């Protein structure tokens, strides 16, 4: 068995014939292994789903208890036999529960990274490089222009602004799974212990984090709050909820937290008054560093800005090819 034959790209996504399962399929399939709970990777309606416990919890909150006919919980590092394949989930450092999928068939090893990052995140275990023959990576930020600053520096900007404008609420647009909780946890680490207001969708996902022992401190529901209560407070809510602040006596400081805020055009389009570069995806240096650490015989790229990464791989003597899977990459997108 050659590692390149472990997975094939089909209309439904990456398929493993040896184990008869799909990884993050984009259509309903009999058996799916899911890397993490973002909706572009975790879809409802599969017959059987294998994923980490937090990922299954997220799917249930998103899609209801009948999101799949049957489900199986996988722990990190636990080898699970599916047909002739051995499947092991490894931390991906992207959001709570996010996993890379290591698939071994007759000694050949292939890793699907899912979405991942290498920067520190207090809400989930760190990415673990797994040596393999074929490494399938994402490349959301696969251009060297994307170099994310340390999240704590960005959080410091937010807190500095709060000090400068103590009468204004600071409302941060952050993806409700992962980004929001990381931002909260980073604020707590920076010593901010005031209550943080979150919208209902984000609050549900925060509960899952709490249930998995990620402490987020004092959170309050945003809905139904008078703007006057929110003055001088931090709220985390998607831009669609920013209108809740329209009547405030003092205009809120709006902010969007995303890796896309690195470029001026994107920051001007959707960054609000204080764009923050905080990403759940690997930046250019994290991507290239990871490929060097994993040191695969072959590199495949699922989605994102792949041309630069492929060029880089060639220069570094690594065989690389794009898969250009459509349907991935919906998270971390700035508002229009």
């Amino acid at each position: 068995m050659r590692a390149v034959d472990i997975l094939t790209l089909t209309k439904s996504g990456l398929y493993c014939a040896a184990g008869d399962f799909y990884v993050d399929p984009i259509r309903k399939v009999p058996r799916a292994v899911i890397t993490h709970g973002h909706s572009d990777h975790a879809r409802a309606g599969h017959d059987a789903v294998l994923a980490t416990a937090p990922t299954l919890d997220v799917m249930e909150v998103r899609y209801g208890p009948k999101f799949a006919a049957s489900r199986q919980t996988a722990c990190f590092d636990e080898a699970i036999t599916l047909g002739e394949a051995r499947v092991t989930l490894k931390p991906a450092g992207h959001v709570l529960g996010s996993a890379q999928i290591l698939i071994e068939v007759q000694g050949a090893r292939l890793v699907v990274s899912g979405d991942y990052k290498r920067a520190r995140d207090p809400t989930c275990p760190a990415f673990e490089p797994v040596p393999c023959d074929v490494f399938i990576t994402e490349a959301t930020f696969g251009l060297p222009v994307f170099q994310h600053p340390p999240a704590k520096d960005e959080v410091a900007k937010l807190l500095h602004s709060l000090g400068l404008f103590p009468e204004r609420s600071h409302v941060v647009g952050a993806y409700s799974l992962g980004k929001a909780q990381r931002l909260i946890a980073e604020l707590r680490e920076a010593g901010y212990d005031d209550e943080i207001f979150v919208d209902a969708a984000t609050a549900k996902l925060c509960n899952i984090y709490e249930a998995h022992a990620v402490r987020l401190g004092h959170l309050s529901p945003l809905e139904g709050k008078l703007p006057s209560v929110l003055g001088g407070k931090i709220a985390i809510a998607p831009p669609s909820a920013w209108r809740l602040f329209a009547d405030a006596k003092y205009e809120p400081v709006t902010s969007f937290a995303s890796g896309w805020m690195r470029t001026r055009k994107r920051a001007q389009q959707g960054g609000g008054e204080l764009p923050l570069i905080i990403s759940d995806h690997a930046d250019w240096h994290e991507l290239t560093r990871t490929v060097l650490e994993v040191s695969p015989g072959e590199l495949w790229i699922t989605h994102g800005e792949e041309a630069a990464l492929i060029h880089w791989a060639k220069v570094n003597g690594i065989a690389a090819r794009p898969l250009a899977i459509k349907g991935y990459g919906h998270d971390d997108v700035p508002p229009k």
Partner: protein
Amino acid sequence: MNRFAELVDRLATASDPEFKQRLRADYASHVGESESRIAQDLLNRTLTFRRLKLSLVRGLADSRLDPVLFALALKYVGDVAETIALLWPARHGTNRAPSLAEILDGLSTLGRSELPKRLEAWLDACDAKGRWTLIKLLTGFIPSDEAFPTSKSEQQTGALIPAPEHSQPGSVEALLMYVEHGRSRSSDLICTFGVWDKEKLTPIAKMSAGVWREQISTFANAHPGKRFGPVTEVTCTPDIALVLEVEYESLQPSPRRKSGISLNRPKLSRLLPDRPASSAATLLDLLLRLPAHQRRAK
């Protein structure tokens, strides 16, 4: 530079003039008076850093970056200056980001051939925002069109960073450098005052102590330095120094003087005995009060 770049960005997105003013005041409180005056001049466009063609900066970038990656990045970003700013490889262990004053100094003292090398060092030390703003300033683009409205209400509240009043009356905090007993009237005391030029003092004005004679004389007698005939040097260390406010009717470039600048009708307006030596103005502060075209007198 990084702080200035951050200020420019925040001014561009803040809507309320009062909020903008708070951002400026916050900036000034972090960087100090002389630095914020340069910032204000750049924002008001009474000062320009324009010295370079973008092609020169591009050349520096080309020597350091993979051309294929640069082309792909440029296609995505759409702007050469921004692409360079974002791609410029960080050099660890480089110096802190340059201040606006250091850049201004570099621009007025370095020759054409020396500038590219210094620019590389500046770019190494700045963050991406700082690099973008620096490249835009050096190639003659103003940081942002909307960043600096000068509506009436804003000018009224805009006193925290005083706008430079060119050739108009003003005052400067200076240090007592020398005292000398007058010849014609034995009771008079002639004082020389100076401002900081890097780590040294440069004299900027010489005048009678007037009504402050007794207080100045007491200080000078208590903290004497070297004697040069009738002239006595006065101690000036970080803790022991006499800061005074000197008013003037106007400023003008004066190439013959060491300071390069002269104060017309200087007048001692008050003593500031609690101030440390470091609170005195710098020569750059004064030079920046000259109209932009007179500034490189020194």
